[in-house]
């Protein structure tokens, strides 16, 4: 079976500075794939380029179609969703309006059912549905950003640092929901600094350093890798040498 998202030999540059170099990755159906790496490794840049926000040199195909000529809106309509690091909510509009707009490209008849599904995943949003997005707490804003993206019925949801700056209890909640998404047939490409949590729920993993993938494989193997453990998981296996 061919992959849902496949990126081949991707380069992304800001002017003359190459932030992502020769990166290839695949996300299959019903799969959680995570990219872990330090701050500034190029993870966010890569996601933005896959979404079409930044120009990308190389090949990106989604559901068997080349994305090169498609802009952000077309990619959304195809079922590719991004929850960006800064969430980009409509802060002066209420929760319900934010969600409704997430279904802008979906038939109106389906949007109602979509909203019920989002409210089931995030009961907190239902309680706050008339509240302005800008007045929500950080965790609620993250839930709203994910909910808005899910309203578009994505086949693949890309999450950029969903746990950043959130209380541990909310982080656990968000990671639980990510696994629920996989169960309901949505693939997830997860970019995280919290490598430990991300590797625990992911199927496949890539380790990014200075714009390149230095390791890839099954998430459980990556988690067991000594070098990864030392640099990203904050502990050393017995007998592991410092890098």
């Amino acid at each position, binding site marked *: 079976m061919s992959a849902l998202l496949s990126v081949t030999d991707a380069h992304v540059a800001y002017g003359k500075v190459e932030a992502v170099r020769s990166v290839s990755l695949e996300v299959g159906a019903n799969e959680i794939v995570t990219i872990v790496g330090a701050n500034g490794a190029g993870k966010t840049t890569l996601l933005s380029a896959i979404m079409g926000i930044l120009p990308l040199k190389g090949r990106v195909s989604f559901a068997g179609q080349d994305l090169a000529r498609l802009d952000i*809106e077309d990619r*959304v309509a195809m079922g590719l969703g991004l929850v960006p690091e800064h969430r980009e909510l409509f802060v002066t509009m209420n929760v319900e*309006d934010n969600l409704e*707009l997430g279904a802008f490209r979906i038939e109106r008849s389906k949007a109602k059912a979509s909203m019920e599904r989002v409210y089931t995943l995030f009961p907190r949003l239902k309680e706050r549905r008339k509240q302005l997005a800008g007045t929500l707490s950080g965790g609620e804003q993250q839930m709203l950003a994910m909910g808005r993206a899910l309203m578009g019925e994505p086949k693949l949801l890309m999450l950029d640092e969903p746990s950043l700056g959130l209380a541990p209890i909310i982080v656990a909640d968000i990671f639980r929901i990510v696994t629920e998404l996989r169960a309901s047939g949505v693939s997830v490409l997860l970019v995280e600094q919290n490598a430990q949590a991300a590797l625990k729920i992911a199927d496949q993993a890539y380790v990014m350093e200075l714009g390149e993938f230095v390791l890839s494989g099954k998430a459980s193997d990556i988690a067991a890798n000594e070098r990864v453990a030392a640099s990203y998981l904050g502990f050393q296996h017995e007998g592991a040498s410092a890098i």
Partner: protein
Amino acid sequence: MNTTIMLFLVQDGITNGAIYALLGLALVLVFAVTRVILIPQGEFVTYGALTYASLAAGQMPGTAKLALALGVGAFAFDLFVARRALHGRLILRSLVTNVALPAIVLALTTYFAAQKPPVAVSIALSLVIVAMIGVYLYRIAFQPLAHTSVLVLLIASVGVHLALQGLGLLFFGAEGQRGPAVLSGAFTAGALRFTGQSLTVYGITIAFIVGLWLFFGLTLYGKALRATAVNRLGARLAGIRTTLSGQIAFLLASVIGALSGILIVPITTLYYDSGFLIGLKGFVAAIIGGLVSYPLTAVAALVVGIVEAFSSFYASNYKEVIVFMLLIPVLLLRSLAAPAVEEEKD
């Protein structure tokens, strides 16, 4: 000054202020959605007014031809963009909305102009013609620059204004025109005399403001427009095209402009270049509203209208000076209240 004069001036000010309010709201809307400071708003006013007056006088307005020419230009832009992947349906849609529609309107205008159409037909044709000009202008002059800075968009906006003003002279000549009243008749209440036309102005302004409020508050497209204004990237990630939002904003702005023109051309004589000054007063209101606040803009527009009415009574030579001087304390206050910000880089 006696009460009668004062009431009369206030009434006059509110009538003008209502028009400025409509224009100010359109300016805020266009700026919020597209970041374009819409200098040609005044030309939408004159084009609407003079197209209406010409039709009512049984003359063929040149604006109908301009709409077709701009439509062909917009179609050419669409074709150029789609040159690598020729989608039959998209091109057909572009052909219908950009070429067939203005061609049909041109034919209708030619037919009706020859036989002095009723007021309602003149109004409808004028609104449609100016609306098309507005939307095609967005496609040609602003959509290709949508990602550039506010300054570049402003320069394009000035360019469009100058071009439209020149074309206005070509189409309508240097003489002023007046149009027939939309609603004739009048009645008096105490010392005040209300003409049908001024009541029409109030009625349509209120209806439009309520209509816009409902559109933005309740409809999906209205919400999409607000969303684009609040967060452009967020809107794109929700699948809302910025070009669609821009088209809707320009459509509303051109209809509002043309409607304002049709409302005032029975009250005052309008020339091909009168619109600029009228648009600027809407702009003063929009600036007082910080180019973001709709209610503040509407209130400011009424103040602008009333100040204008009083200054034209007391010091008619300095009327414009006094109105535009309103800006100075407002800008001072705003600059003191808000810290200096660099233009957003997006």
